[in-house]
């Protein structure tokens, strides 16, 4: 089933980590195999923030194979070597969990494709996000468990999207969890509720164009599809509008960039979405109770129609 939620503050920052946690926790009945956050924090914009994993969470319910922690250390060392070889300087390093790391990197490039390909050439290593304000945090369990594990409730920023997942078409693991980074674009992330039926056709076509897939989760296709459209010169909104015909199946999805948040709904409107919009805040989720966690007072909300695409700026 899965649940998605997102919010964007216009003209100000807020405690988006805590707000999104409340929204996703309200949707936990839609799935709590894994939960993911894409948070756009307040930064000085100088350094890249790279969230990456060197292994999987093999806790209860995981479909991943157990590995020795020493393997994680080896992989981390190789990542550090590759960064040094590419001239990327690690400014700050946090090892949140044995398999999950956060680096602040001083690196001067506009094209992250080569950079990402080199880092991900290390077996078992996946970049969860790369950007100057985006941080993707995803792990097994419900929203509160992931929030507590990664200490997210203090994160201040302008906007965020998140996903509560019921695993149906791929494994219970971090690599299949949402949000997906819009590889190789800085600060692009995607969450999705639904099923895509032309996944393999699109995937093969995109792989032929040099795009990469880390999982067999159909939702990852949206991130790669949008990224490819933007690579070809389309704006975020144009890419999203093209996806309505390019992607087959039922879907409601959100895409976020450094300064914007967008939603798209398939032409059959088969997946739910409730939206609240005011001058200073847009909040949306699979169910109204998600919005109620941040706006408990009586408010006006509505369901976007079939085939609708909307994009808001911070």
């Amino acid at each position, binding site marked *: 089933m899965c649940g998605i939620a997102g919010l964007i503050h216009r003209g100000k920052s807020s405690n988006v980590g805590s707000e999104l946690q409340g929204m996703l926790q309200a949707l936990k009945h839609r799935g709590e195999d894994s939960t993911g956050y894409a948070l756009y924090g307040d930064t000085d914009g100088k350094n890249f923030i790279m969230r990456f994993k060197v292994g999987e969470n093999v806790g209860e319910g995981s479909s991943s194979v157990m590995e020795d922690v020493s393997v994680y250390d080896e992989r981390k060392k190789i990542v550090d070597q590759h960064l040094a070889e590419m001239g990327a300087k690690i400014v700050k390093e946090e090892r949140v969990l044995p398999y999950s790391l956060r680096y602040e990197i001083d690196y001067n490039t506009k094209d992250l494709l080569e950079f990402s390909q080199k880092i991900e050439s290390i077996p078992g290593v996946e970049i969860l996000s790369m950007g100057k304000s985006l941080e993707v945090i995803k792990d097994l369990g419900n929203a509160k468990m992931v929030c507590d594990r990664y200490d997210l409730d203090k994160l201040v920023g302008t906007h965020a999207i998140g996903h509560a997942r019921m695993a149906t078409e791929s494994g219970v693991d971090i690599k299949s969890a949402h949000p997906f980074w819009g590889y190789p674009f800085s600060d692009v992330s995607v969450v999705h509720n639904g099923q895509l039926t032309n996944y393999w056709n699109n995937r093969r076509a995109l792989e032929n164009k040099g795009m990469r897939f880390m999982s067999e989760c159909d939702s990852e296709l949206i991130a790669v599809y949008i990224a490819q459209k933007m690579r070809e010169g389309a704006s975020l909104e144009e890419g999203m509008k093209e996806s309505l015909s390019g992607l087959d199946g039922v879907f409601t999805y959100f895409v976020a960039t450094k300064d914007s948040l967008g939603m798209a709904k398939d*032409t059959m409107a088969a997946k739910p979405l409730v939206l609240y919009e005011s001058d200073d805040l847009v909040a949306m989720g699979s169910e109204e109770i998600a919005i109620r966690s941040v706006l408990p007072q009586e408010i006006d909300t509505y369901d976007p129609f079939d085939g609708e695409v909307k994009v808001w700026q911070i």
Partner: protein
Amino acid sequence: MANLKTSEKKSKAQSMGMHTEVLTGRTQQKFFNPDEAENFYYFGTYDVDFNKRTDLDVKDMTAPEANKEIDNLMSQGYGTIVIKNPQGKHSLGVGILNKLNLIFEGSLGYFGMGSCDGPVVRINGRVGWSCAENLIAGKVVVEKNAGSCFGAAIRGGDLICKGSVGARTGIDMKGGTIIVGGDAGAFTGFMMQRGRIIILGDVGINLGDSMYDGTIFIGGKIGSYGSDAVDAKLTKSDQDWLKRKLKVAEIGENFDLNKMKKIVAGKKLWNYDNLEPTEKKGAI
């Protein structure tokens, strides 16, 4: 000779793969017996007084707790109940099989007022998916917007939304009336079998797709017609009915009924002529 005939029938039936054995055991079917008092007991029926009014704050209640409390209040004779702080909770007010004046001071989540028979409900907020699904009788008025599957499979009663509604409004409806003051999404009246839908605003694609029967009235633009949905002539009788219905619903007071389009089933998808009479009866 008679035996021979029976034997021939049996073997023919068997050769067609049909079952001929006599079923034994106790039937699950319950037959009406006017001598049995239980046949006259209607679950959930209470004598209520509309002038006896109370408030119920459901802020810290789960949906089952809130619904049980509504039932408890009806058993005490309360005929008007005001629900405070529904806050988008799912499944509030379901299964009320009683006359009752129910007012929600706020919004409901999914399945609000589902499977009801009799109450008059006013929701001073928005409702989520599948509002009033399977409504048998009564009236539900939503003051703001509604989600998808509004009035799914209703059998009777009036369901009114003063704002806009999502996709698949009146899907599989079998009777009753749905009135929407704003716009409606795709697949409005999808597979509807009976009843009437009135949309004063625009509708999305595939209007009345695969509808068996019933009537849809659209005041605004139509995204596209669904399979087997066709235009029909709007008669004076239709206009009179619409005028009365909108007045009762307190909606569209100044709406120009001459703009209204009437959509019905083309019945080209019907396959009933190929069915045996008994099957035809079951299908309808």
